[in-house]
């Protein structure tokens, strides 16, 4: 039987992946309150529908090999299109997002069952997921930006979902503001991209990704301020990525975002929000490749973020915040390996996406299990007040252990295959691309991150799950119910065995490596595949030849494993066996601890110095200008208007008859004029 | 043989009545006068029917002194009484307005007659409606002309220079504008389904499929209530609430002037029942049975069917009068605007959907 004839071409229904959650959003908002358990079903089922279509597309493309597909139509201006694209990159994201989001929704049916605004919560999460689908499916920058912002709006709404708590409201605002900084710059980048595309004389599909990729050779000659325009654009994109994916200076909103419901944290960290930034770099990867130095910046920012966030994870006591910092750190890994794409080519995208998917599974698992902990002991989040929970909630405890093992890349878990590969490839990058001490910096950062990751992850797990209960609520935790337990088990399975299922990741990588280099079918024609070597040459990047084997010393390969074991051993010694008394170092007068505790004073810098000193000073000058110059002009205009009105208002008698008489008189005069000058009507 | 003669006869009749000849309008005028006379008889029959049926409902005997066995001549006696009564014109009335009002009311009622087909002959597959005249917008004409009657009521109330009369007239107007909207919308829904403003087409449409009362039950209910309100019958007879308003807007009228107005009300009832039968109850059609009879005498069957339905509807209307109490004027208006109008709109939506598939 010919499979092409007997199955549905799901690629044609790709827009429904995005639309179904939007419909779910509307239904939840309008009638969800009166439905089963006061909401939840519409959102969950709509995302299930999206999931079915996503996996249908995956079947079409991966098994049936129907080819990549893109369709678009004119949107609002000649040259601006709206469209959807189906290729391995978007498929990997779609399948991951729909799967994780579905299970988070499934979990939330249990987790949010006591909330009075349940339907609003589910409406917002459905919109959140739908926006993410839209973002992933977008075939052009503007559409992507719109969904990017919608994701931001939804995160604002959801982080501040418990708005009656002032911290939650402030956290929502902070998330929005931090992202907005990056988003403004991102939009500027899109505008610049539009400008230089138009300068090339391109009139259709101006900011579609595929069209940009086709024209990279011309675009790379554009210069702005003596720099390559593409580099500037990529730096601006990178700013957007830093805001959305919590890169180094703009990550400050992530820990505060823990004020939202835990399911929201899981959604933000695993599926929908923060992965958007990584996805943007992956989607725009050829642009970065063609821009000189852009990928180097990406690599350094990512690696630095990875290390930086893991140091902060060591001192935080809030269970959810520990995982939040680990997310920042893991995103740093992904961004760093994308930066290594300067040498690895599209394989870097594959590695980054595999780590993204694996991370989504285990991070969703970690958040959901910590949500289960919070649910079980009455919203206590401080790990110093937990302890011994595994006796009371074995399901939660063991599944969290599975997540933690995956996070620290314990052998044969999902993280082992994804993260160790990243570190290995970072070494390759350093050794091939940029010999010298500086080139090894990303690799060093990433390797150091491993030990810290192992330490802080198991610090959290040991303190929460083992030992003696340290507060009253932790004495009698209650285990989570059916909805939540099912989700935890499913996610734990994938967190442990995703790597093995995908053949150590190789199946996934091979599939993803077809992105960009294969042709894309559209309704009107075909975009040929890209020659990434050629494109890399435009940006001064020399890619490794395919199939050429490079020796990596065995020491480098096994170093992350050793360091992970070392970190695990430290955590076990300190927090499980209690051989070392940390309270000697964890003191307010320890300057190192002080810095870490205050998160390197970054919040202080943003709020107290930039916001209150610099911006307020500028505003003061602006105020003077506004009050005397601009208002003066406005007042002059109004004065002129008033004076002329004083004269002409005499005409207005307020008596209707006068007006009617004037109208009739005027019309009569007009008719007479017409008759006079035209000799008849 | 007989069939052919019948065919020729009807053909000649319709040639005479046609618009082509100069005498056509005159003959139709004569026919109209005949219909007018017939309508007076029907109205008198309605008055008699009301009194007898009411007495039956209330276990009374009813009129039985004058006339034969069933008091049949009671109406003649009443009419003679009205004719011979003194025509009193109160001193302070607004003369012309006061005098014109009953004429206008009676006139508007009579004007409705010409558009209504009182049954039809069906012969050899052709329908010959039994109407004074036929035109394409008869249902619209009926609604428009019945609206003139409201002006008559206002003139009666205002011209009488009597506060009871004015209040009664305004109750009447307030009620009628409220219910005419719902009435009009239900009629329009029928028109939407049929695609024609011609009553004959509407009746024929029901003959080929099914009565509109069954496909638009909501519309039929709204139409029925609004029609009863429009006719000013209990429970919507606030304008004649004797306890409050003496005799309503007719307080200052006596003799034949009152008689005219009184008759106009009954003609309204008779014609209203006709319209209900025509547009919702299939007119002269028998359900599920298309009358195409070649036997000449059976060609009259549709007329008989129509008359039977008409009497049944009238009896229903009369029965309601003696079964329900009168409701307050504010309740009347709020029912009209807040219940019937939305329901009529729902029905309109339903009619639009129905019209897409009609005739199925």
């Amino acid at each position, binding site marked *: 039987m010919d499979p092409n004839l007997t199955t549905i071409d799901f690629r044609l229904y790709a827009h429904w992946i995005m639309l179904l959650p939007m419909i779910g959003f509307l239904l939840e908002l309008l009638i969800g309150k009166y439905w089963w358990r006061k909401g939840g079903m519409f959102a969950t089922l709509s995302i299930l529908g999206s999931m079915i279509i996503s996996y249908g597309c995956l079947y079409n493309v991966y098994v049936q090999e129907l080819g990549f597909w893109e369709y678009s139509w004119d949107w609002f201006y000649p040259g601006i299109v709206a469209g959807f694209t189906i290729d391995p990159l978007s498929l990997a994201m779609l399948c991951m997002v729909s799967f994780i989001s579905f299970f988070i929704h499934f979990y939330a049916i249990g987790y949010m069952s006591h909330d009075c605004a349940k339907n609003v919560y589910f409406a917002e999460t459905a919109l959140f997921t739908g926006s993410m689908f839209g973002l992933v499916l977008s075939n052009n920058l503007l559409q992507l930006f719109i969904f990017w912002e919608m994701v931001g709006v939804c995160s604002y709404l959801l982080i501040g979902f418990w708005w009656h708590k002032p911290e939650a409201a402030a956290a929502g605002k902070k998330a929005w503001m931090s992202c907005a900084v990056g988003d403004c710059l991102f939009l500027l980048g899109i505008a610049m991209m539009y400008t230089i595309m138009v300068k090339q004389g391109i009139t259709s599909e101006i900011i579609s990704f595929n069209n940009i990729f086709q024209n990279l050779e011309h675009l790379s000659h554009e210069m702005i301020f003596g720099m390559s325009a593409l580099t500037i654009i990529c730096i601006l994109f990178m700013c957007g990525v830093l805001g959305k994916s919590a890169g180094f200076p703009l990550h400050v909103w992530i820990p505060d975002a823990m004020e939202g419901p835990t399911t929201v944290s899981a959604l933000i960290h695993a599926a929908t929000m923060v992965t958007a930034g990584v996805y943007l770099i992956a989607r725009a990867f050829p642009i970065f490749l063609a821009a000189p130095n852009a990928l180097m910046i990406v690599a350094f920012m990512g690696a630095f973020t990875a290390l930086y966030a893991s140091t902060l994870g060591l001192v935080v006591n809030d269970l959810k915040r520990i995982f939040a910092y680990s997310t920042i750190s893991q995103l740093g890994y992904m961004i760093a390996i994308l930066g290594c794409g300067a040498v690895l080519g599209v394989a870097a995208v594959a590695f980054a996406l595999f780590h993204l998917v694996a991370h989504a599974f285990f991070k969703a698992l970690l958040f959901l299990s910590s949500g289960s902990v919070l649910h079980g002991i009455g919203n206590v989040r401080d790990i110093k007040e937990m302890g011994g929970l595994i006796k009371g909630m074995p399901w939660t405890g063991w599944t969290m252990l599975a997540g933690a093992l995956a996070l620290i890349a314990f052998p044969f878990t999902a993280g082992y295959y994804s993260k160790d590969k990243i570190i290995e490839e970072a070494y390759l990058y350093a050794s091939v691309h940029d010999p010298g001490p500086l080139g090894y910096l990303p690799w060093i950062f990433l390797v150091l991150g491993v030990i810290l990751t192992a330490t802080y992850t198991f610090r959290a797990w040991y303190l929460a799950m083992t030992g003696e209960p340290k507060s009253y609520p932790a004495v009698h935790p209650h285990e989570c119910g059916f909805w939540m337990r099912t989700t935890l088990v499913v996610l734990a399975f994938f967190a442990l065995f995703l790597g093995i299922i995908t053949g150590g990741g190789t199946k996934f990588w091979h599939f993803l490596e077809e992105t960009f280099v294969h042709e894309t079918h559209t309704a009107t024609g075909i975009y040929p595949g890209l020659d990434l070597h050629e494109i890399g040459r435009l940006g001064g990047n020399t890619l490794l030849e395919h199939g050429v084997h490079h020796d990596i010393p065995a020491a480098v390969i096994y170093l992350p494993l050793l360091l992970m074991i070392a970190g695990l051993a430290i955590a076990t010694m300190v927090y499980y066996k209690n051989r070392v008394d940390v309270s000697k170092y964890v003191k307010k007068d320890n300057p190192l601890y002080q810095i870490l505790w205050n998160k390197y004073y970054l919040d202080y810098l943003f709020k107290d110095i930039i916001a209150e000193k610099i911006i307020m000073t500028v505003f003061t000058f602006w105020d003077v200008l506004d009050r005397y110059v601009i208002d003066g002009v406005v007042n002059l205009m109004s004065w002129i208007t008033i004076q002329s009105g004083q004269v002409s*208002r005499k005409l*207005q*008698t*307020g*008596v*209707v*008859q006068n007006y*009617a*008489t004037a109208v*009739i008189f005027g019309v009569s005069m007009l008719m007479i004029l017409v008759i006079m000058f035209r000799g008849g009507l | 043989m007989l069939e052919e003669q019948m065919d020729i006869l009807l053909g000649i009749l319709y040639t005479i009545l046609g618009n082509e000849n100069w005498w056509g309008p005159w003959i139709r005028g004569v026919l109209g006068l005949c219909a007018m006379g017939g309508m007076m008889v029907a109205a008198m029959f309605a008055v008699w029917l009301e009194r007898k049926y009411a007495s039956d409902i209330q276990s009374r005997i009813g009129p039985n002194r004058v006339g034969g066995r069933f008091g049949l001549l009671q109406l003649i006696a009443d009419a003679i009484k009205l004719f011979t009564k003194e025509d009193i014109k109160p001193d302070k009335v607004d003369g012309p307005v006061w005098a014109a009002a009953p004429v206008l009311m009676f006139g508007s009622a009579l004007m409705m007659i010409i558009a209504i087909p009182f049954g039809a002959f069906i012969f050899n597959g052709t329908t010959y409606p039994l109407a004074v005249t036929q035109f394409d917008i008869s249902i619209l004409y009926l609604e428009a002309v019945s609206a003139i009657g409201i002006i008559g009521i206002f003139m009666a109330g205002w011209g009488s220079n009597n506060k009871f009369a004015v209040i009664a007239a305004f109750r009447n107007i307030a009620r009628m504008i409220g219910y005419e909207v719902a009435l009009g919308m239900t009629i329009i829904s029928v028109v939407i389904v049929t695609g024609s403003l011609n009553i004959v087409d509407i009746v024929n449409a029901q003959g080929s499929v099914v009565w509109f009362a069954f496909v638009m039950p909501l519309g039929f209910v709204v139409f029925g209530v609004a029609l009863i309100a429009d006719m000013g019958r209990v429970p919507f007879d606030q304008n004649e609430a004797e306890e409050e308003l003496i005799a309503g807007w007719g307080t200052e009228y006596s003799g034949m002037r009152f008689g005219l107005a009184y008759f106009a009300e009954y003609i309204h009832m008779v014609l209203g029942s006709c319209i209900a039968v025509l547009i919702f109850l299939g007119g002269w059609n028998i359900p599920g049975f298309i009358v195409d009879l070649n036997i000449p005498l059976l060609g009259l069957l549709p007329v008989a069917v129509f008359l039977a339905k008409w009497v049944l509807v009238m009896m229903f209307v009369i029965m309601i009068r003696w079964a329900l109490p009168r409701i307050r004027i504010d309740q009347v208006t709020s029912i009209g605007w807040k219940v019937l109008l939305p329901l009529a709109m729902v029905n309109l939506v339903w009619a639009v959907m129905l019209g897409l598939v009609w005739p199925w």
Partner: protein
Amino acid sequence: MIPLQYYLLLAGILFAIGAYGIMTLSNGIRLLMCVELMLNAANMNLVAFSTHINDASGQVFALFSIALAAAEAAVGFAIILMVYRLRAKIDIENIKLLRW
């Protein structure tokens, strides 16, 4: 067939009467009545032309105009009633709120 000029003359007279009323009367209700007269004159022209050139579109215009007139009357009389409730007067000489 009545000549077109007769219709136009009649409509002109009707319009002039309405216009005269608008210019001279001060009672708000009477003003609106005069507006209705003028509208009717205009409609009569439309219908007359439509009959004259044997084209139904003039009648369609007249129907639109009638529908518009109904809406206009409803709004106009509602305004007058509200003004009456506020001021206990419908004499528009007294209603000059819009005057400077």
